[in-house]
């Protein structure tokens, strides 16, 4: 009985070996005769396509389709309603610290009391004098705020009631050379809107990026609907894509949410479209780059946000830098959530005025995973499109680690979250435990849809092991990608901080 079972298993194994060998031989033959085995399905064994699990939308012809399995959706209460709130801001600021890579004390073009127009140069970095950082609004420069060691933290402008723009004449995209386009973008203040990866810093004008990636949807907790953010600016977006396509030797790639497959995004020209479905962080551009065309050792790629692309396009369609932005006010501590029409760098206090409930709240510029804690006198970063409010969690809970069987956002199964599948959590900032050494394994990998081992990367960074860091893929990551791992961390380790340390170490090497 046993021996017959063994013989049958042996025969099946033999058959599998024969099939595998012949499959590989066929592929070798195909390669020899020049057939591209990645595109064609050569071989005996049919290619199982897991992408077929989520059906490819019929309209999505061309472009690739990715179904990301790892990830975790943090369903928080306080989603933005689709209404526009009447809140406005009268002061705006440009924040040098938002742009990684520039010196702490940039050189100013303007001084306090001077009148500026929207798009007019405000300051520049000493080592890159051609790249201009432009004013988001027109008005009077009222304050140059300084932080630690006299570093400039905000250049504050009191906005005019009606904006006057610093007009520019855009070169013709089809006729201008790359150098002319780059010089134009630097002069008009649009250059700082481009992020370079690896390291997530200001792009370097001498470098040719391999590709440009734009993620058109945001899966962060309570993130705004990007279709609302870009509404009315579709032509500007297309113009921006056209301009960007001239700047790279590769292509412009759009990461599109699978559910937005039939929208106008699918018909954008000069761009390759890639459809993503999956939980957060499927909307992160770093994850999308990894699945479309990962960053290799000496590559640099550029990334931009959806509103930034429209701003660049407006240079060509409207003749000025469009600094208007839509910002979402989200979170359970707001009376009414919604969207606001404003400009880059708006004042937080004025936008959230009379809208906050509760007294012990934290205001975050950005989302709860990657945002920056702000006070009412602070300003939004130019590239941030949401303000989140959550409760501060500075309370002691009796037997808090054992007893709470009420649902709480968690990637583990130790809370009865499965009983409340559509429950929106009211989260707070309590750490729910103290910092410990790395103990659990596999929890980072289960939420990060990349072929990277995050825990070992963190250990390599902490050990200052440059070769190991690079080998394990630090160049493919930015803080926003590792943020979901930091959320899931049982040992409450500061992963984003460790990653930034590692990225800075790698940057110094160059």
């Amino acid at each position: 009985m046993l021996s017959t079972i063994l013989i049958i298993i042996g025969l099946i194994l033999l058959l599998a070996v024969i099939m595998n060998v012949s499959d590989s031989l066929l592929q070798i033959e195909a390669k020899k005769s020049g057939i591209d085995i990645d595109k064609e399905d050569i071989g005996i064994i049919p290619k199982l396509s897991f992408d077929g699990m989520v059906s490819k939308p019929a309209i999505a012809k061309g472009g690739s389709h990715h179904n990301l399995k790892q990830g975790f959706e943090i369903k928080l209460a306080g989603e933005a309603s689709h209404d526009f709130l009447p809140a406005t801001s009268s002061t705006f600021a440009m924040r040098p610290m938002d742009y990684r890579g520039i010196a702490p004390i940039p050189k100013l073009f303007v001084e306090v009391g001077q009148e500026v127009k929207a798009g007019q140069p405000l300051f520049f970095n000493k080592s890159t004098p051609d790249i201009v950082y432009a004013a988001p609004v027109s008005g009077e420069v009222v304050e140059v705020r300084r932080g630690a060691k006299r570093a400039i933290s905000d250049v504050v402008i009191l906005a005019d009631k009606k904006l006057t723009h610093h007009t520019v004449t855009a070169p013709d995209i089809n006729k201008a050379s790359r150098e002319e386009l780059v010089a134009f973008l630097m002069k008009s203040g649009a250059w700082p809107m481009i992020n370079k990866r690896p390291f997530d810093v200001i792009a370097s004008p001498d470098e040719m990026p391999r590709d440009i990636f734009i993620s058109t949807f945001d899966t962060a907790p309570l993130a705004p609907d990007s279709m609302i953010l870009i509404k009315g600016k579709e032509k500007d977006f297309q113009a921006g894509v056209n301009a960007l396509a001239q700047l790279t030797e590769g292509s412009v790639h759009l990461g599109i949410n699978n559910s937005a497959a039939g929208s106008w995004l699918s018909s954008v020209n000069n761009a390759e479209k890639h459809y993503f479905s999956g939980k957060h962080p499927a909307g992160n551009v770093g994850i999308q780059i990894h699945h479309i065309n990962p960053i290799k050792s000496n590559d640099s790629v550029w990334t931009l946000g959806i509103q930034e692309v429209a701003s660049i396009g407006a240079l060509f369609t409207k003749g000025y830098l469009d600094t208007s932005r839509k910002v979402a006010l989200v979170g359970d501590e707001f009376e009414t959530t919604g969207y606001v029409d404003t400009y880059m760098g708006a004042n937080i206090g004025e936008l959230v005025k009379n809208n906050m409930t509760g007294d012990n709240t934290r205001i975050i510029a950005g989302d709860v995973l990657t945002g920056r804690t702000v006070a009412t006198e602070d300003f939004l970063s130019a590239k941030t499109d949401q303000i989140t409010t959550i409760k501060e969690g500075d309370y002691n809970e009796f037997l808090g680690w054992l007893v709470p069987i009420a649902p709480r956002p968690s990637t583990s199964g130790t809370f009865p979250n499965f009983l409340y599948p559509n429950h929106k959590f009211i989260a707070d900032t309590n750490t729910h435990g103290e910092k410990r050494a790395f103990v659990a394994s596999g929890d980072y990998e289960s939420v990060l849809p990349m072929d990277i081992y995050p825990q070992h990367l963190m250990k390599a960074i902490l050990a200052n092991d440059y070769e190991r860091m690079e080998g394990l893929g630090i160049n493919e990551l930015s803080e926003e990608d590792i943020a979901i791992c930091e959320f899931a961390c049982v040992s409450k380790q500061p992963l984003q901080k460790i990653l930034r340390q590692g990225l800075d170490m790698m940057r110094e090497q160059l």
Partner: protein
Amino acid sequence: MGLLDIFKKIEPDKKKSPILHTLYDAAFTFAYSPDSVTDGGVHIRDGLDLKRMMIHVVLALQLCFLFGTYNIGHQHFVASGEFLGFLEGFHLKLIHGLIQLVPIVLVTMIVGLGIEIIFAARKGHAVEEGFIVSGMLIPLIMPPDIPLWMLAVSIAFAVIVGKEAFGGTGMNIWNVALLSRVFIFFAYPTTISGDQVWVSGYESLAAGTQASYGWAHGLFNSLFELMGVDLFDSARTAVVDGYSGATPLALAYSGGWEAVTEKFSLAQMWWGTIPGSIGETSKPFIIIGALMLIVTKVASWRIMLSATIGAAVMALILNAWGATPIMDVPWYYQFYMGSFFFAAAFMATDPVTASTTNTGKWIYGFLIGFIGMIIRVMNPAYPEGWMLAILFLNTFSALIDHYVLEANMKKRLQRA
């Protein structure tokens, strides 16, 4: 709120009395979760922390504890031929089991936590939670009659040499609970191997030996007298002729599967009413605990599954070889004997000592099953191979991870 205020008032000074402060901190963080808020990085954190993760392992072990306690008493009375039915003499068996178990748990906790507190006080950080699980696992892998001083020495060895010397929780290379057992195994082998040690309450298992009861038994006797039920009576309870405290595994060595089935039925071996270490006998309760850990994602199902596959593969190979009686035991019956399920579910899956990459976990678990089965079958001096196999693979788990990471790095380089 009252308790919280009391706690805040009695906080001892950290510099002046570090040990008191560490004790206070351990008690405070046990009673109350800390009020620290996120600062930099993410603003909200997962609800799971290390304490909660550890307590779920302890919860998963509770069924094994309950059954093991009762089984101690059951085996004691089976040896004397009394109360042969599982539920007969319920009160006697339960109390006898508790009298054996509670001192073991107390000694484990006091010695282990005491050492941890001393080290934490010296280093100036909080008492870390690693010992919650180890302290619950150690009683379950000990024979019921283990002398308490031996237990204390082994725990001191395991915690000091096996854990604190490497840096505390999260830094140890070897499984702490297994280190304590392996210490006793090599230092005091007669207390943990052979046929005499798995049944408690008798000086030796020779026919006619009377049960040795202590003051605790006398205490409960007065209670039982009041209730009018059977009492502990060393005159009445004596080892019967022909009783050997042999575990199924010991029987299989000498006589193969036939010898095992002569003495124990399959149902007995499955449900666990057999002599053995305290927690390892009852397979269904271990499986329930393991399922609980898998569902809550606290333990890795990959390790459990691949250990089972590795053990099965090796058992099949040994069946094919068939040189000794134990090799002839059909491969599916190998799982009924010994502590495979316990080792695979709770020992092998310790996240700190196992491989950390998913591919590594498959290899690690498979090799544990594979090598453990070899040790069990080939060498009758090592009655159970899992302890040694797991410690062996703990040594190599980082190496397995190293190769998985090297493959990942090479793949990344080749992309370039």
